[in-house]
């Protein structure tokens, strides 16, 4: 019974990071951000380098209210498996007034934060036969290219775009180039947007498929492809803000930065 559960219940995977709009970094082509993403249990939030900051507006992705989401859906014989995590962090550098300039970004998700609703299945998902959280806890997406950008709706206070983000995607220790269709909306700060989050906002959502075998994920006894779907659908949704989390949290008299927006990673109190 236990083996049946292991093979039938576990499926999945995946997650991914997504989004953002990117362009090769002129300061360091191929590397869009600072901060190494550590393997193992710790996942470090990526940060933009000073050169990226000059290319556009930095939107920080880190929501203490856990409203950001990366989820996956996998077909399985008895019932489809849906998993999710709200532990999404990263950044996007994008100029909404000049979208053709492109941008850059990086998103990271931790495998250890994934949940499917069944503790046993979650344990198997993070085990060595599947995502192997102990050795490859970080799933990351660094956007390197942006194409087919088009403005689809604009009015006072907002602009909505569609585009395709391309770049290296790392899962289970294996990196492959992927393309993600994205819909993004830039919102200028207003009384209505403050109810969601302070600062100017960039909301983005996208969906794409990932082949488990391409990332060396076979499951127990080759269950991938037989009892579990080979391809997994990944959905991403997040809201980035121009106000860095440390500035949001530091809105107290003891902090010299107060509630100022942190636009420059080199000078967290400056704009």
């Amino acid at each position, binding site marked *: 019974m236990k083996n049946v559960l292991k093979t039938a*219940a576990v499926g999945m995977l995946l997650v991914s990071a997504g989004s953002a709009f990117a362009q090769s970094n002129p300061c360091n082509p191929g590397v869009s951000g600072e901060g190494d993403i550590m393997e193992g249990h710790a996942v470090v939030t990526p940060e933009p380098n000073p050169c990226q900051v000059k290319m556009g507006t930095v939107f920080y992705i880190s929501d203490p209210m856990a409203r950001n989401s990366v989820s996956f859906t996998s077909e399985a014989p008895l019932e489809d498996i849906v998993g*999710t995590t709200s532990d999404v962090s990263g950044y996007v550098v994008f100029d909404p007034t000049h979208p053709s300039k492109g941008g850059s970004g990086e998103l990271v998700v931790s495998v250890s934060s994934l*949940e499917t609703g*069944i503790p*046993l299945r979650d344990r198997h998902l993070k085990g060595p036969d599947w995502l192997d959280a102990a050795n490859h806890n970080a799933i990351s997406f660094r956007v390197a290219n942006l194409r087919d950008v088009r403005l*689809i709706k604009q009015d006072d206070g907002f602009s*909505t775009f569609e585009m395709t983000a391309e770049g290296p995607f790392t899962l289970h220790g294996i990196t492959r180039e992927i393309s993600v269709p994205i819909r993004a*909306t830039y919102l200028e700060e207003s009384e*209505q947007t403050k109810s969601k989050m302070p600062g100017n906002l960039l909301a983005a*959502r996208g969906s794409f498929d990932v082949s488990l075998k391409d990332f060396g994920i076979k499951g127990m006894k080759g269950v991938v492809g037989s009892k579990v779907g080979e391809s997994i659908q990944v959905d991403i949704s997040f809201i980035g803000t121009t106000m860095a989390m440390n500035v949001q949290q530091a809105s107290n008299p003891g902090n010299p930065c107060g509630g100022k927006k942190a636009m420059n990673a080199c000078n967290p109190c400056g704009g």
Partner: protein
Amino acid sequence: MKKRMTGSLILAITALVLGLWLFTGRHAYTKFEVVEKVPLQVSSNDPLAATGFYDGGQPEVVVHKKSFHFGLLPTPSGLFDKHALSVASVLGSSWSLFLVVWWLGRRKSTVNSI
């Protein structure tokens, strides 16, 4: 009489277990929390509502909530895990017990007749 009562009891347990499975959503596995995709209800107060962000098909959101579903199969993490309860485990143990009792009863009748 005793056999009829035992038979009735096992049938009642079967009906109860299957009824609970049907009533709680006919899930494959026993769960006490669910992760599922549901249609997104866009509020008029949502600043993204009129921006076209949700256009292009019915938007969905993944929810993770506490919700009990009695499933066909168990998913226990340990011997006394609540996830061990399921249609298969309850009916399996009940019917096994019933068959053992029935068989022992038949054996006893055969021995007595001899």
